[in-house]
């Protein structure tokens, strides 16, 4: 596959029905992300960041235009095809971690590999590697309720990275973390981006995250108002 664009968004529009009319969340978005990018969509609340991430993540579809991820137009995928795309090629990191509360740290990280039907020995190695990356080897048997916010987010990173996806989408990953924890997890993600060449796309309005981004796309009222690479 060509190294150039892992994600290609063209003339993307997203409306949500409101009463008899509709609310425009995204308007004429044109963006491309290359493999290995460490990019972020920034902007105030309600600017359309999460909507854009959801469409790229094939959790939602565009109203108009196209969003092509790994060569597949997400708007034209069936539920099953979209699920397969997410399962095989994408990792998600959420603001509220979204860990499975009844699972241990190990089981949470192992979960995506079970969906991929990997052999137990392969799974074990991959999970331990992922937990090593995020420095949580000593919390393997803990449950999410026994972890701090920072530790939970590190588990979420390990879970997103364990299958070594081409693309990781992180929606406000530091919003619930203090500065020290935010820097810790961002450094972890930068390291993984460099070592594994995984593409990271953030949705954030947190300055601590923005400092780490190599490319910053600013959205306002559903429109791209700035796209700068440092």
């Amino acid at each position, binding site marked *: 596959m060509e190294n150039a664009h892992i994600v290609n968004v063209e003339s993307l529009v997203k409306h949500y029905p409101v009463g008899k009319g509709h609310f425009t969340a995204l308007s004429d978005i044109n963006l491309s992300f290359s493999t290995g990018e460490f990019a972020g969509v920034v902007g105030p609340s309600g600017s359309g960041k999460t909507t854009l991430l959801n469409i790229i*993540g094939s959790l939602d579809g565009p109203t108009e235009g196209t969003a092509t991820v790994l060569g597949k137009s997400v708007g034209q995928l069936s539920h099953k095809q979209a699920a397969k795309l*997410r*399962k095989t090629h994408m990792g998600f990191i*959420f603001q509220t971690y979204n860990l499975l*509360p*009844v699972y241990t740290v190990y089981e949470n990280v192992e979960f*995506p590999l079970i*969906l991929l039907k990997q052999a137990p020995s392969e799974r074990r190695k991959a999970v331990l590697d992922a937990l090593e990356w995020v420095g949580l080897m000593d919390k393997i048997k803990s449950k999410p309720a026994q972890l701090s916010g920072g530790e939970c987010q590190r588990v979420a990173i390990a879970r997103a990275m364990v299958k070594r996806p081409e693309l990781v989408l992180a929606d406000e990953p530091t919003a619930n973390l203090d500065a020290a924890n935010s820097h810790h997890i961002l450094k972890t993600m930068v390291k993984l981006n460099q070592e594994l060449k995984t593409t990271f796309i953030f949705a954030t309005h947190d300055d601590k995250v923005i400092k780490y981004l190599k490319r910053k796309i600013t959205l306002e009222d559903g429109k791209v108002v700035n796209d700068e690479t440092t």
Partner: protein
Amino acid sequence: MTAIKLALRNLIGAGLRTWLNVFVLALILILIIWHYGIIDGWNRMAIRDMINWEIGGGQIWTADYDPYDPFTLDDSHRVLSPSLNDEIEQGNMAPILVTQASIYPQGRIMSILLKGIDPDQQVSELPTDKLLGGDEDIPAIIGTGMARDSKLNTGDNITVRWRDVNGTFDAAEVTIVDVFKCDVPAVDNGQIWIPIEKLQEMTQMPGEATLLILDQDYTWTGDENGWVLRDHDYLLQEMREMIKVKKVGGSVFYIVLMLLAMLAVFDTQVLSIFRRQKEIGTYMAMGMTRGQVVRLFTVEGAMHSTLAAILGAIPGIPFLIWMGKVGFAMPAGSDSLGMAISETIYPVYSIGLIISVMLIVIVTTTIVSYLPSRKISKMNPTEAIKGKLQ
């Protein structure tokens, strides 16, 4: 397999919530199997007692005899043919003569059936040997039910009034020589048993009988004019009808128990889907299809019953085996229900019973788990991820 693995992990992780449901389901499984075991045991015991005490290997009736129509009794007697007498001599059958009579216990009139039976007979478990060798003019035995209703006891004398073959009334005193305990109302309630020769003499019906009870190991192939063979199918027909009715009654109990269990499972499933929206969204984000999530939740619910079957077996099997040995004591007064009930019923559990009850519980739990899980297929994953109620 993935759904089973994940469901098991989720259930074990859910802790107390899971174990409460599993406990309720296990209890219900054991109760249903035990209840059916009691009914099966009761049925088998009732049929066995009927055969041992009343019908033996079948009966031969005079053609006019109808046990439910007292008017037929006047004509329901015939002289026993030489070939029938030979069979009686060989112990293959026992003759019984039946006539209507009245007794007057404590100054009140009570209609009864006076039955004559060969005191030497071995085909019925009736203790007819008690009718032998006493000094009494007319020795009689009665069952405990009759003794209770007539307030008669061993050693009591009671006046019996009857009509002979010519319609002439006569009366005599009989002496109760034994009160036997029997679970078959048809040989107990409203009946007095005396030696058949004595009754033949009293009714002026020498050498006659109303019916014959066959030995359980004997098959009668004869053809006697005026006599009709009544086999087990005929004689047990009414009992089997009663068993059917009893089973329907038992099913109500079973349905109520199942409804309670299913309510618990349904409630858990609805609550799960309501509370676990974020988790559902996360499953979808990680690549599970909606169908897979529905399957996962359905398997989770259905697994409650599988776990209940496994865990219920630990206390359930020893309990059911123990009950099978010591039996279940029936409450006082249950012998007045009009069918054979012993003081203790020994439950009988067949493999078919256990498997069918378990299958019904598992299939019902699966359906009840699936119904609320269908809501997941309509969920918007982007809203579910945030835990927003939909």
